[in-house]
């Protein structure tokens, strides 16, 4: 039987506040799952409950068919990488990595080979006699990873492990972590508030907000079919148009537009979300190409060059709209700041959410 980790209606109450409220989650053996959300959404509390640092107020945490709610961390054999790394500053790199092995009473002659093996994997063999303070942030991160992996944990928990690093190293290390996870086939729970990191590294992403799970899905699904307005807003960038839905048309402040899919809603107040890259610019020289309707005109107020794409901010009557277009197309169109441009919002690009 596969060693799955199941959170069954798990809650954590601090005083009178639910940090985590009845979440359900099943993680398969070998899976890489990321808990994503803003600070205070309950993702770290969830991780700490899995680690054994917090005891759930209600619900059960089941691992390998056993309820482990009240097991102390030492008895779980889960490896943890902390946001601050928590490397022991008075121990050398190899002593740090050997610590867990000693605590688990590994045979003396097996400790050093295991330490070397881990340091080899993370590429720090030549730094084994250094103290943590003598290493760069990225190296310290790798030591923390090696230390957590050394006692052969069955699950590894990573609490915002890259948040203290520079953007460049972050991208490099997250690829390394993913590769290592695939090689070892180890069940992994990863906590982050960085949606790009979550999408790029995970098998599945759990989007959390105010202690509840908003959506659990593969990264592509999270991005393409955000199940709530919250997810659409938090993951990636979205433009939102509010209005009254009636017969497949939304009557908004700016414009009345058609949507292809009303998400099961027949009528009432709704929000329609559209990604910036789905919006098209109607080039006057290419006029007639687009169907009538679903267009709106606004003034181009900001141009941000992002490399491959250019992000434009277009001011409509009551709101700004973000539009991403390829840099090449932007250059070809020869538009400049202050100009009025016409936007086309494809009906099938909208996702509609009801408003309570």
């Amino acid at each position, binding site marked *: 039987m596969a060693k799955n980790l*199941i959170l*069954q209606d798990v809650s954590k109450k601090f005083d009178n506040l639910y940090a985590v409220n009845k979440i*359900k989650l*099943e993680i398969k053996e070998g899976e890489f799952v990321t808990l994503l959300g803003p600070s205070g959404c309950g993702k770290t509390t969830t991780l700490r409950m899995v*680690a*054994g*640092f917090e005891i759930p107020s209600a619900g*059960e945490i*089941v691992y390998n*068919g*056993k*309820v*482990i709610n*009240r*097991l*102390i*961390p*030492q*008895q779980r054999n*889960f*490896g*943890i990488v*902390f*946001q*601050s*790394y*928590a*490397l*022991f*500053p*008075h121990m050398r790199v190899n002593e740090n990595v050997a*610590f*867990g092995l000693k*605590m*688990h009473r590994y045979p003396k002659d097996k400790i050093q080979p295991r330490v070397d093996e881990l340091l080899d994997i993370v590429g720090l063999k030549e730094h084994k006699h250094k*103290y*943590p*303070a*003598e290493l760069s942030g990225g190296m310290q991160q790798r030591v923390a990873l090696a*230390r*957590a992996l050394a*006692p052969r944990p069955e699950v590894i928990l990573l609490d915002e492990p890259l948040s203290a690093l520079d953007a460049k190293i972050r991208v490099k290390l997250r690829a390394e972590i993913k590769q290592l996870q695939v090689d070892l086939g180890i069940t992994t729970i990863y906590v982050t508030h960085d949606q790009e990191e979550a999408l790029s590294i995970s098998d599945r992403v759990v989007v959390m907000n105010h202690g509840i799970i908003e959506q659990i899905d593969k990264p592509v699904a999270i991005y393409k079919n955000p199940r709530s307005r919250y997810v659409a807003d938090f993951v990636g960038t979205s433009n939102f148009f509010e209005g009254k839905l009636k017969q497949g048309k939304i009557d908004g402040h700016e414009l009345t537009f058609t949507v292809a899919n009303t998400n099961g809603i027949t009528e009432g107040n709704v929000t329609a979300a559209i990604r910036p890259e789905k919006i098209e610019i109607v080039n006057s020289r290419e006029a007639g190409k687009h169907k009538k309707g679903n267009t709106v005109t606004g003034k181009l107020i900001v141009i941000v060059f992002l490399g491959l794409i250019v992000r434009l901010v277009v001011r409509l009557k009551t709101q700004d709209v973000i539009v991403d277009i390829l840099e090449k197309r932007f250059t070809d169109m020869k538009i400049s700041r202050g100009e009025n441009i016409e936007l086309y919002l494809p009906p099938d690009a909208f996702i509609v959410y009801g408003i309570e």
Partner: protein
Amino acid sequence: MSTITAENIQPKGKKILNDKYLIYVVGGLIGLFLLVFMLLPVLNILRLSMTAYDPRKHEFLGRLTLANFTNYFSKPAIVQSLYHSLWIAVWSMVITTTLAFFFAYGLTRTTIKWKKALYYVAMTPLIAPSLLQAMALISLFGSNGLITAGLLNVEWNIYGPTGIIISEVLYCFPHAMVILYTTLSAVDSRLDEAASSLGASEVTTFFKITVPTARYGIFSAAALVFNLAITDFGNPIIIGRGYNVLSTEIYLQVIGMQRFDLGTTIAVVLLVPSIIAFLLNYYFTKKSHSLISGQAKPQLPPSRPLKKYGFTAYSWTIAGILLSVIGVIVFKSFIKVWMYNWSFTTSHYQFKIPGGISVLWTSLKIALFVGFFGAFLTILNGYIIEKKKPFFAQPLYLFSVIPAAIPGLVMGLGYILIFNTRFLNLDNILYGKPLIIIINVIITNFTLGTLSSISNMKNIDKSMDEAATSLGANTTRTFLRIIFPLNRISFMSNLIYYFMRSMVTISAVIFLISPDVHLASIAVINLEKDGQEGPSAAMATLIIIIVIVMLAIFALLFKKRGLKVVAESE
């Protein structure tokens, strides 16, 4: 998701309980230790001060009464000691704080040279018993003083309030200086720069910016000096000459006349101002710490010549006075008969006192014991309060902070009144034994040790504990392998602090020595009171030498083992 049917496994063995209860047990033991050796003796004094007493049989009668207090306030000679104490404490406070402030200002805000040396010289009063100042003043300004009788040949001498105040100023100087130094180096000196860039003169800046921003540090230092001066025993008993203060009055009533009723009553009277001063000190210290900015300190611009020379002259004058206090005593210990026969001798170093030279080794042994045990206990205490936070962390903290409010003399009196009991055979185990002295010194200095340990614990990453736990270490191993090594610096400084206090303290242990246990610092005071000024100077010199040598040894040990720490500076 369907409901899961899973085997509900309980923790293996009782490990989870063990770890939690281990903290309860250890924390509970520390709490019990403080309860028995701090709170009970003091409460007992309160009780006895309100118990009827038979002065002829020297016995408490067990009846509740306020007669002791009416008795106290009806004896003008004794009540006077309260006014004397307040007078001494207030003047010592004003003078010490002022002098120390300018000294600390010179060290932190001007570009005078030799700052490190000046700082260490300012600390020298800490390495000697708190009667050295009085001994030196008497040698120079007494009725037979080198300056008064020798050089100037005047009738005036320094005995009485003037002598006590000057002694207290010299004794309390380092305590106030440390606080003001910390405050002035922590307050952002760019405030001063901002003021001068807005056109304020140096003097205006000083009074409108520097002093107000350092005010909590100043108040905190003043309260501490007040507390030290009002509770000091060594200096007033030597230089007071009939000018009795509360602490000397307690001693005279108890030792001289066996009047435990008056002793406990005066002890309670002394507790009031000392507790108030302590609370003020505590309050202002907290306030002061909240004002400290963690920002990088800009380089000081070179001070103008007048300022520089002024502060150089001022600082070295103070330093010179502090050094000459020690110098006079060391010199005197080699002089055959002060003022009469100036020939060199080492005969004063052959002590004709009970225990002889061995009192020094007793003191050293006890001080080392106090140092290691006290430092370990305060680190452990700080760990439990700050990191483990059991449900009784708050009361334990409160218990740990109270000792600083209790004068050592009162605590010592409390000990002899409560531990001379047959109960649990305590009169045999504790009474008159080194153990009671060790416990007393640990308790009376418990506050500072615990507070410094707590602030050190605060700087240790919270995940450090959890990292060790997740890697399989239990609480004991986490403490021994992670927490304790990370607190080496704190342990060392607590050890040194405890060691020094134990070597030089008088008031805490004056009631606790016995025919079995003699201490060096008490030998100094007894020799001095007997008029054996040569031997007392010699004993004081030996104490100073031992403290300096041990400090050097600690520093070496610390350097060797502390090499790694340098790399850790995060």
